[in-house]
């Protein structure tokens, strides 16, 4: 008999439900917090107009915050605002 039958697979899948979204997002934003960008993210979440302008030119927005807009950071922020 197989180590895994369908019932057992189902039981094991049930063992790993998703963590709350807000917890995951907060942990994912640790590098942004380290760069002092959490205020920028919060403002973008609260203000649609600001978010639109920000996403349109993320590189310039980061430079204004005194942060070098390396491609990975820009991509991480883009993903964040798409969520």
């Amino acid at each position: 008999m197989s180590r895994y039958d369908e019932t057992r697979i189902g039981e094991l899948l049930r063992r790993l439900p998703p963590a709350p979204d807000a917890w995951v997002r907060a942990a994912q934003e640790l590098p942004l917090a380290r760069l002092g960008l959490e205020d920028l993210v919060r403002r973008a979440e609260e203000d649609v107009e600001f978010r639109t302008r920000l996403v349109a030119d993320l590189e310039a927005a980061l430079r204004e915050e005194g942060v070098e807009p390396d491609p990975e950071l820009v991509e991480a922020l883009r993903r964040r605002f798409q969520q």
Partner: protein
Amino acid sequence: MSSEVTDAALVARCRAGDHVAWQELVERFSRYVYAISVQAFRLGHHDAEDVFQEVFARAYQQLHKLRDDDAIRPWLGQLTRRLCIDKLRAAAREAPVEDVDPPGADDTIAELDEAFAVREALDAAPEHCRDVLDRFFCRDESYATIGAELDLPAGTIASRISRCLAGLRKFLEGKKPAPSAV
């Protein structure tokens, strides 16, 4: 989470300062860390959230200390375990108990390790299988809810779950599932 990138490659990218890789790493291990705190150590919501954030904060700070990049999961597991015990000890100082380690914690963690392996197999499955099995088993959605979300009859959802489980079983037995079978 994606199984295309190995744990070691993901860790290396995180260490190099790749923010997207960090987001993927958190996504990949978030369920595991969460499950250890609430299932093995039975922490309440707030304590579990504290542990969850502390695990990833320490992991972010101490990633350079990891000797074997492939060992990220057991490393996170140990870190989670230690922080859960600290949390329980802190609570026990206020209301002393004999042993803060809940009975069966080790067995539960072993079960979660096995669950993680099955989860990785699920990540290698076709998208429609990942989605339907995750919704049904992990998110506890009913056939009707999944059917409404995917615009499919409940009966189709039931048969898809059955076929996808069979495909996953084959995969776990070392055989590649035939994509057309699901």
